């Protein structure tokens, strides 16, 4: 067996993931500012320019941004496969991607197609380089763990999301290209369930037992879960793509697929809750609360979606609020609070352990970002989330408090991450 490509190294350079982690809250802050400027009307329809811009600030600017950085960090550890020339590739991807997201969302919000055209020239290559690099790395992965299978499916979903998104954005930017609005729902499904949810579940198989010292997920769920969701998504896409041909005769098929999807995701949440309740590490922290809040919101968003499908109520904005900020943002925020302090410690250890100060001069994880600071931001996150749900029903009263709460919350996250990096630099400078 050839072990030459095996990488059990601890991590790429600290800048590789951190540049993604630090940029993400900036886009979240931009999203909060957009909420404030756009006003309560932004919740009226998902097709409004500001709503489209807001969604992409959250999904591309924050969620995908962090997940990209995390993959550069986690692939060597989880899959035994690092991304070749990670430092150089990540710098290029980060620069192109950040510029692309900024131009794209600005173009969407202002309906200036020239910005969307310009954005696509940098955004699509950035995502393509990322996808090719990660796909090659996952293809070569040594580990046969369920996480790697889940990651492969999530990356395949991102390929599909990008293809559909590219078609939609091209239609939006160029008059000569038809805007195929009916594929929007399929694009959203692959992005939210295929890319975001499957990737988070794949990572959960590893990090829930790891961070919270729980038992492993049952084999059956690890083995079949991602594959079954992928099949559901294929079925769902087919029923939506051929919606007019199928008409009402096959409505039951669509509802069956949605029911199965909801059951699978709620089962995943239930298993995770069960493991967390029986965890051996009894000392809870903000990261665990973020996870639990996120998983609760995943279940809630699935129930809302199922309800909206059978009752024919359009709840898409409410589902988006609960899914994006309740589920994805919570889990990712919780992950950042474990990964960033650990990286600071790890890289300081590499550089300082052999100096005269030794290990005692290196701040521990809790000193990099204190438990109290993380908890305060968690409470603010929950307040912002509740206010936003209330704002959906009573925008006149709750919209601006909700937008301000998000602005404060994401600024606080940004400050905590910046302070962690400053501590890293101070420790290095003091030697």
């Amino acid at each position: 067996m050839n072990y030459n490509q095996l990488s059990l190294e601890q991590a790429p350079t600290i800048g590789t993931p951190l540049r993604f982690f630090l940029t993400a809250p900036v886009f979240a802050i931009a999203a909060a500012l957009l909420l404030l400027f756009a006003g309560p009307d932004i919740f009226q329809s998902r097709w409004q320019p500001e709503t489209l811009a807001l969604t992409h600030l959250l999904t591309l600017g924050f969620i995908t941004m962090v997940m990209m950085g995390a993959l550069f960090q986690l692939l060597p550890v989880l899959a035994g496969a690092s991304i070749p020339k990670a430092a150089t590739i990540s710098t290029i991807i980060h620069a192109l991607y950040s510029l692309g997201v900024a131009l794209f969302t600005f173009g969407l919000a202002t309906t200036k197609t020239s910005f969307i055209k310009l954005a696509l020239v940098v955004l699509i290559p950035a995502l393509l380089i990322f996808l090719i690099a990660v796909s090659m790395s996952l293809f070569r992965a040594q580990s046969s763990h369920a996480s790697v299978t889940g990651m492969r499916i999530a990356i395949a979903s991102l390929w599909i999301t990008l293809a559909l998104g590219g078609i939609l954005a091209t239609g939006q930017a160029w008059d000569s290209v038809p805007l195929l609005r009916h594929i929007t729902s399929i694009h959203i499904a692959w992005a939210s369930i295929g890319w975001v949810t499957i990737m988070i579940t794949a990572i959960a198989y590893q990090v829930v037992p790891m961070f919270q010292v729980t038992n492993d997920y049952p084999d059956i769920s690890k083995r079949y879960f991602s594959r079954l969701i992928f099949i559901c998504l294929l079925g769902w896409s087919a029923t939506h793509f051929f919606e007019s041909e199928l008409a009402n005769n096959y409505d039951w098929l669509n509802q069956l697929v949605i029911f199965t999807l909801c059951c699978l995701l709620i089962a995943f949440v239930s298993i995770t809750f069960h493991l967390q309740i029986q965890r051996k590490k009894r000392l809870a922290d903000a990261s665990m609360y973020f996870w639990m809040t996120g998983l609760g919101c995943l279940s809630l968003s699935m129930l809302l979606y199922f309800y909206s499908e059978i009752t024919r109520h359009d709840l898409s904005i409410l589902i988006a609020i609960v899914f994006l900020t309740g589920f994805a943002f919570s889990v990712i925020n919780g992950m950042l609070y474990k990964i960033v302090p650990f990286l600071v410690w790890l890289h300081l250890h590499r550089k300082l352990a052999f100096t005269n100060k030794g290990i005692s001069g290196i701040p521990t994880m809790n000193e990099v970002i204190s438990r109290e600071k993380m908890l305060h931001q968690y409470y603010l996150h929950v307040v912002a989330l509740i206010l936003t749900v209330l704002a959906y029903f009573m925008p006149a009263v709750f919209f601006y408090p909700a937008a301000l709460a998000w602005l404060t919350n994401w600024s606080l996250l940004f400050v905590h991450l910046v302070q962690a990096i400053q501590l890293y630099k101070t420790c290095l400078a003091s030697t």
Partner: protein
Amino acid sequence: MSIQSVMSHDHKRCDDLFSNAEQLVSKKLWDEAQLSLKDFCHSLLSHFEHEENTLFPAFENATGMQGGPTMMMRHEHGQMRELLNEMEIAAEQHNQARYLGLSETLLILMQQHNMKEEQILYPMIDKECGEQADELTASIRNTINSDVA
């Protein structure tokens, strides 16, 4: 019994002991916490010794790889030993904040280390040295049995 199953089982045992000590520190039950930490240190250090003195050399001999994954695993053992020392000092000084900061750091370091061993290195050792699995894991199984007893 494969090397992977014996060693992974021992990781879980160490995790339990780690959590127990952390729980006692969080309640400031210092006498019990120090005893529990001692158990954890003993188990983790003997796990490292079995790897460094028996399993890794067997793998290195079978593959001829000296500076590969086993070198990185030894390096991480060194990092964990340093954290354990600091945790013992913090426990002696009844310094709860310092202890919990160190134990959180150790936990993540230990878990990502275990993950790499369980998913990549142990399967490789089983593949290269599987015929000697019983012989290689005999001493660690004895240690576990005597600790549990």
